[in-house]
């Protein structure tokens, strides 16, 4: 997420800003509490997750990933907790001004409400593996680094095929 207005097709789309500064007092560390479930829960808001969702470690290990299990709505989920790579953070965003009650539904200004350093990714009916889409998404970090590295004259030279 780079927060740029991508010149969308919607003419009404206002300027979008994302404030990733973590100086805000409301900011909370949610490391160990961020879960990605293999389902869509049609609800947006707080719920007593830790009282009902009880991940347990298992003996299993796949691709070096420690497998955990939990149940949700009668389904057995198998998951694994992965750390975000060094230098990266996860951000939970909220619309700016929601605390002051000046919440403008048309506002496209976001700010950080919480951060996290790991995420637990859950599968239904499949054990976690490094081939899971979310874990593979981490490849982007390496690719992005390579793409954005400054190319020196020497690099160009060595890449040249005469």
């Amino acid at each position, binding site marked *: *997420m780079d927060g740029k*207005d*991508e*010149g*969308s097709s*919607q003419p009404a*789309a206002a300027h*979008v800003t994302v404030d990733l500064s973590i100086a805000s007092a409301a900011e909370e560390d949610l490391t160990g509490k961020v879960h990605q479930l*293999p*389902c*869509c*829960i*049609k*609800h947006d808001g707080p*719920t*007593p997750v*830790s*009282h*009902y*969702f*009880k991940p347990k470690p298992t003996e299993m290990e796949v691709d070096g990933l420690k497998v955990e299990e939990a*149940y*949700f*709505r*009668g*389904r*057995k989920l198998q998951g694994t907790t992965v750390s975000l790579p060094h230098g990266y953070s996860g951000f939970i965003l909220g619309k700016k001004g929601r605390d002051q009650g000046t919440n403008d539904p048309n506002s*496209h200004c*976001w700010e950080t409400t919480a951060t996290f350093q790991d995420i637990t990714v859950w599968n*239904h*009916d499949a054990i976690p593996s490094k081939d899971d*889409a*979310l874990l*593979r*998404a981490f*490849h*982007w970090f390496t*690719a992005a680094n390579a793409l954005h590295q400054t190319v020196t004259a020497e690099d160009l030279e060595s890449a040249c095929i005469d």
Partner: protein
Amino acid sequence: MGSERPPPLPKWASKPCIMGIDEAGRGPVLGPMVYGCLYCARSYQKTLSTLNFADSKTLKEEKREELFESLKADESIGWAVDVIDPRELSDKMLKKNKINLNEISHESAIGLIKKVLNLGVLLTEVYLDTVGDTEKYRVKLSERFSNIKFVVAKKADSLYPVVSGASIAAKVTRDRALRDWILDETAEDLHRNFGSGYPGDPQTKAWLEDHKHSIFGFPSLVRFSWGTCTSYSKDFVDVLWESDAAEEDDNGKTSKRQKKLTSVGFTTAKKKSEDIESSGKGRCKFFQARKLELLSQF
């Protein structure tokens, strides 16, 4: 949980033995389902019929407990139970490839037979109550265990004392397991007045009513795959599963059970899968394979 530590194999076990298998807690909407077996030497059969085992359902709880204690103390009898966790029942019945309750029951009975054979008991005849089609069940068992004669019969629990005994072991174990159940959930307002667990039991109904939760459904003691839970779905927020979406893609329509369970409010399969996850559609392969979508508006 399960049976107690197996004693050294008694002498009678190397003579031809009979075994009865029966279940308890198949119907209830909550708690484990228990399969129990009881076995003894064929020559002990006559004595067994004098022990007043009757179908566990016709006995009072105290009497059942008493009979269970006496059969445990009887050195001419062996027994074992398989306690199937409600979480396992829900999960198997809600998997992408659903396993129905009859299959789960068959597998449990087969597991008990294997277990007793592995102890070294010479099983020659096994008596069971029918689950699903009687003859198909008998053939399935006979194919697995060609040296055993299987008798699959309706009401086996009242016809054969060895099955009655098994039903007592199963029923007492099920009742105790429910009574001593430790809820996984830690919300403050949970209580343990489960009732019998049968959907018609007013106490069970009250418990379900008290423990429904709009997001989580019920505590994991409840068998989510039971029809009883369906009537509560209006109190729950919709949850869409990838496995349901896949199923819809396969069949063109959601199977009846899934539809009832989630009361899905969305019409097209496309909408559903997009609701569940990002797709990376329209981007280059690298992003598609990683389901990385470019968000330009949010």
